[in-house]
C-alpha cells in the first residue's frame, strides 16, 4: 500500500484490533513514552537502585492492567454507578476521620480488617469528576446558579474532609477535578470572575483551618532562606539542583545534588529536580512534551466524546492530570508551596500511579465505546 504516513497512523489507530480491545493506542503510546522517561530518571534518582526501578515497573504494570480493564467498561455503567460510588467513598472518608490510621499527625488510611490499608481520598480523585459529570449528564448546559451551588456543595464536602485529614495536596486535586467538570459544563464567566475576586478572602479563611505544619510549609515557601537547614532545605536544594543543571544538564548519573544526597526526596516528590540537574532545561522541555502529548490526547477525547457525561469526565480527568504535573514542577522549582503532590507516573510510589492509570482507563473507555456513526 502506498499511503501517506499520517493516513497510515490513522489506519493504525483505527485498526479493528484496538477497537475490539478498547485500547486508545495514541494515549497508550504517550503514556508508555512518559513511563519510559520516568523510569530512566528514577534509576538515577534512586542512586542506581535496580530493585526500586523494578518495583516501579511492577506498579506501572499493575496500573496498566487496571487501565485496560477499566477501558473495557462502557461509560454508561460508570455513569450509573457514579452517585453510588460517590456516597460510598464519602462514607469511607467519614470512616477515615473516625477510625483512620496514619503517621505524622495525619489520618489518611483505612485499615481493612485482615487486609491491606487503603486511601479513600485517592479514590475520591476519580469519583469526584464522575459525580459532577453525572449531575450534569441529564441537565441542560450551561448550568443555572442553583445547579452551580449544588455542585459546589458536592465538591466542597469531600474536599474539606480530605483537607481535614490533613492531606492538602489530595484535597486540592479532588477539589480541582470537580471544579474542572463545572468549568467544562459551561459555568458563566461572571461566576468565574466573581470567584477570582473572593479568592483572597477564601485564602484567609483557609489559613485558619490549616495545621501548623501546613502553615509552616507556606511560610517556608514564601521565604525558604529563613530556615535553610530546616524546612527551607528541600526547596533550596531543589532550586540549586535545577539551576546548576543549566541548559543541557550535567549528564546522566552525573548530578552532584542528586547523587550526593543533597537533594531530599529525590526519587519521590522532587524527582523533576534530578531530571533538571542531569538533563538540563532541554530534558525538562522534552518531559513536558511527553506530558503535553498525554494531555492533548485527553482533551481531544474530551472534546469529541459522545455525551456530556463523557465530555465532562474526560476533560476533568485530563486537566487534573495536568494540575498534578503543574503543581509538582511548580513546587519543586519554587513558584508554588510544597504541598506534597507527586510528579504523575514519574515519581516513585504506588497509590497515585494506580489512580492515575485508572482514570486513563476511563478515558480509553470513553474514546473506544462510541457508537459508530
Amino acid at each position, binding site marked *: 500500500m502506498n499511503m501517506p504516513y499520517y493516513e497510515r497512523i490513522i489506519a493504525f489507530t483505527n485498526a479493528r484490533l484496538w477497537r475490539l480491545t478498547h485500547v486508545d493506542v495514541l494515549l497508550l503510546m504517550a503514556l508508555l513514552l512518559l513511563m519510559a522517561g520516568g523510569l530512566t530518571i528514577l534509576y538515577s534518582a534512586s542512586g542506581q537502585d535496580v530493585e526500586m526501578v523494578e518495583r516501579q515497573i511492577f506498579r506501572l504494570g499493575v496500573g496498566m492492567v487496571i487501565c485496560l480493564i477499566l477501558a473495557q467498561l462502557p461509560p454508561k455503567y460508570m455513569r450509573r454507578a457514579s452517585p453510588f460510588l460517590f456516597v460510598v467513598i464519602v462514607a469511607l472518608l467519614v470512616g477515615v476521620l473516625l477510625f483512620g490510621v496514619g503517621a505524622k499527625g495525619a489520618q489518611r488510611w483505612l485499615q481493612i480488617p485482615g487486609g491491606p490499608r487503603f486511601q479513600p481520598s485517592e479514590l475520591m480523585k476519580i469519583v469526584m469528576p464522575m459525580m459532577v459529570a453525572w449531575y450534569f449528564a*441529564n441537565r*441542560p*448546559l*450551561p448550568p443555572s446558579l442553583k445547579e452551580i451551588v449544588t455542585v459546589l456543595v458536592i465538591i466542597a464536602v469531600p474536599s474539606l474532609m480530605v483537607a481535614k485529614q490533613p492531606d492538602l495536596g489530595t484535597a486540592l486535586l479532588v477539589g480541582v477535578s470537580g471544579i*474542572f467538570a463545572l*468549568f*467544562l*459544563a*459551561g459555568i458563566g464567566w461572571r461566576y468565574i470572575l466573581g470567584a477570582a475576586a473572593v479568592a483572597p478572602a477564601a485564602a484567609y479563611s483557609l489559613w485558619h483551618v490549616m495545621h501548623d505544619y501546613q502553615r509552616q510549609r507556606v511560610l517556608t515557601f514564601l521565604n525558604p532562606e529563613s530556615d535553610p537547614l530546616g524546612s527551607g532545605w528541600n526547596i533550596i*536544594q531543589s*532550586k*540549586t*539542583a*535545577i*539551576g*546548576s*543543571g*543549566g*541548559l543541557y544538564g550535567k549528564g546522566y548519573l552525573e548530578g*552532584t*545534588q542528586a547523587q*550526593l*544526597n*543533597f537533594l531530599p526526596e529525590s526519587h519521590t516528590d522532587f524527582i523533576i529536580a534530578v531530571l*533538571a540537574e542531569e538533563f*538540563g*532545561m532541554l530534558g*525538562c*522541555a522534552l518531559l*513536558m512534551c511527553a506530558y*503535553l502529548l498525554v*494531555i*492533548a490526547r485527553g*482533551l481531544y477525547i*474530551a*472534546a469529541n466524546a459522545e455525551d*456530556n457525561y463523557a*465530555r*465532562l469526565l474526560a*476533560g476533568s480527568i485530563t*486537566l487534573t492530570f*495536568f494540575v498534578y504535573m*503543574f503543581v509538582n*514542577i*511548580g513546587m519543586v*522549582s*519554587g*513558584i508554588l508551596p510544597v504541598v506534597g503532590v507527586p510528579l504523575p507516573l514519574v515519581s516513585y510510589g504506588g497509590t497515585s500511579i494506580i489512580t492515575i492509570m485508572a482514570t486513563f482507563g476511563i478515558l480509553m473507555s470513553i474514546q473506544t465505546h462510541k457508537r459508530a456513526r
Partner: protein
Amino acid sequence: MGKHQQVFRNYRQEHALTKRRVIVAAIFVLLLVGVLMARLFYLQVMEYELYQTKADDNRVMLVTEPPPRGLIYDRNGVVLADNRPIHSLTVIPERAARLPELKALLNPLIEITEEEWADYEDRLKDYRRPYQSITLKTQLTDEEWSRVSVDLYKLDGVQVEAQLTRYYPYGEAFAHAIGYVGRITSKDLERVDRLAYQGALFIGKTGVEEYYESTLFGKPGISKVEVNARGRIMSEIERQNPTPGQNLHLYMDARLQQYAYDLLGNYKGSVVAIDPNNGGVLAMVSKPGFDPNLFVRGISVAQYADLRDDKRLPLFNRALRGGYPPASTIKPFMGLAGLEYGFASWTEQYYARGYYQINPNGRRYRDWKRGGHGWIDLERSIIESVDTYYYQLANKMGITPIHTFLSKFGFGQSSILDLNGASSGLLPSNEWKKARYKEPWYPGDSVNVGIGQGFMVATPIQIATANAAMAARGHMYYPRMVQTINDMPATFEDNEGVEHKITLKDQRNWERMVVAMEKVVTDAHGTGRRLQGTEYKIAGKTGTGQVFSLADDQEYDANSLDKRLHDHALFIGFAPADDPKIAVFAIFENGGSSAKPADLTKALFDAYLYDNYPAEYDYFKEQGR
C-alpha cells in the same frame, strides 16, 4: 427525567459549549506550561552561575593533609628524629554515638584513660570543621589495632587512621638537644597558622624541634574533595600534595653525643663540645635525660609527675639553663682581662701565700693550696690554678673591667643562636648589685668573682662558647645546632650576632694564654697533668666549684647529703691546641675533683680527632650515610 424533556435540549449547542471550554482549558494548559518553562529558564539559564556555585559549595570541601615532618640528622647522616607510621583511634563526633554510649562501646575493647577522654572532650569543644575526626588515642599497639579493627563495623564514626609520627631512635642522651614534639594544644595553635596545622597532631615543643618548627613542618597538602550531604568524602577532585618539611643536618656528632652522655656515668652534669672554627655544637649533653618518645606517645600524668618530681631533674636542660659557678675555668679569661687593662703582665712576679687579704687583719680568702704557691707569674697562676693571684688581680681591677671583658665572650647573655630557652647566667656589675640588693659593690665581691665564684653564674653552653673563642684565638662564634637545611647552609638574618672578633691590645696574648693552658697539662705541677701522653696537644683548665645549691632542691635528705656537699668538678679544654678542632666543657655535679671532667674531655678528643671509640659505638657508624 422523561424522554420528551430531552427533545428540547440543543445537544449540538451543548457540545459546542464544552468544546469551547476544552479549547480555553488547552490554552490555559499551554500558558501554564509556558510559566513553568519560563521558571526553568530563569533558574537554569539566567541564574545558572549562582546555582552552579551553590552546588559546588555543597559538594566541594577542602581537606588539609599534614606534611611529613623533616628529619633531623647528625653531621654524619645518622637519623636523630625519624618518622614512623603509627595507628591512632579517631572519632567523627557527628557520626559516632554520644559520649556515654561511645565510652561503653569502646572501653571493653581498648584501654582509654580518663585523661584521653578528657582531652577528647576538650577537643570536641574547640573550633573544628564539621565531620573532621578527632584523635582519641594515639600509638595503638598492634594488638589494640587488630582488636578495634575487628569491631569497627559496629562503631559508627570510629576509625583507625595511620599517620607518620616522630620517633627518636637514641632516646634520652639526645632529649635535651633535639627536643621533642608533642600533641598540639590550643596554646600552641595561638602561635601558628591554624589552617596549616589543621589535621596535624604534633608540634615541636623543645630543643631543635621547637626552634625549627616552621622549617621542619613543611606545607600541608590541600585536596579538594567531593562530599555527600552527610560529609562523607566520595572522591578527590583536585590535589595539592603536601610539601614535606625540610631536613636538618646538625653539627652534632651522634656518636660523640652518646659517648659524652655515657661518660658522665651516674653523675648529673653537662658536656658541651663545640667546633671552634664555626661554633657548631658537636655535642650538648644534659644528664640525666629522659625518653622523648614518651611525649610523642602521650605521656601520662603519673609518668610526667615522676619525671617532674625526680630530684635529679631529668627534665631540666642543664646545658642551657644550669647555673654554675665557672670556678677556676674563668682564670684564663680573667688573666687576659688583667693583661688587657694593664693590671697584669706575663713577667710580673707575685708571691702566693695560702690566703689573700684585702686589708691586713681582714677576711682571709683561702687558696686551694694550704701552704701557698710561693713566687709565681701569670703563666704559672694558670698552670697551678693559683687562687690568690686572681683574688688580688680582681681586687685591683674591680668589677667594671671584668664585666666589660667577659661580656665579649658571651657571659651574661643567652648566646646560642638556634635554641630557645637558654639562660643568660649572671655576669655581675655595679648596676646589677644596686638593682638587686640595693647595696654597693664591695671589693670582696670582686675577689670572689676573680676565681669564678661569688655572684658569677654561667651555663655550660656559655663556658663552652668562651672556651671555643679562646681556642679560636678570639674569633668568637655564637654556638649553633644546625649546619644545613635541605643541604643548604643554615643562615641567620642577624649576621652581626653570629660571630665577632675579640681584639686584644696585644694579640700575642692569645697565643701565650693558650700556651699556659697547654702547660696545665704538660707541666709537672699542672692541675691537668693526668692528661699527659697524647699525640696531640691539649690546652685545658680545671675547675672545682663550691656547691651552688639549686633553689628548688633544698629538701633535707640524709642519704644524698654527703654527695651533694661535694664540689662540682669542671674542665675546659680544646685540641689540638695549635689548630683546635674541638673545644669541650664538662661539668660533673658534685664530682669532687676535676679529674673526672678532664678524663672525659680527653676521651672525647681521642674519639673525635682519632675516631677512637669503644667498639659499642660502631653502630652509629652503620646508621650514617
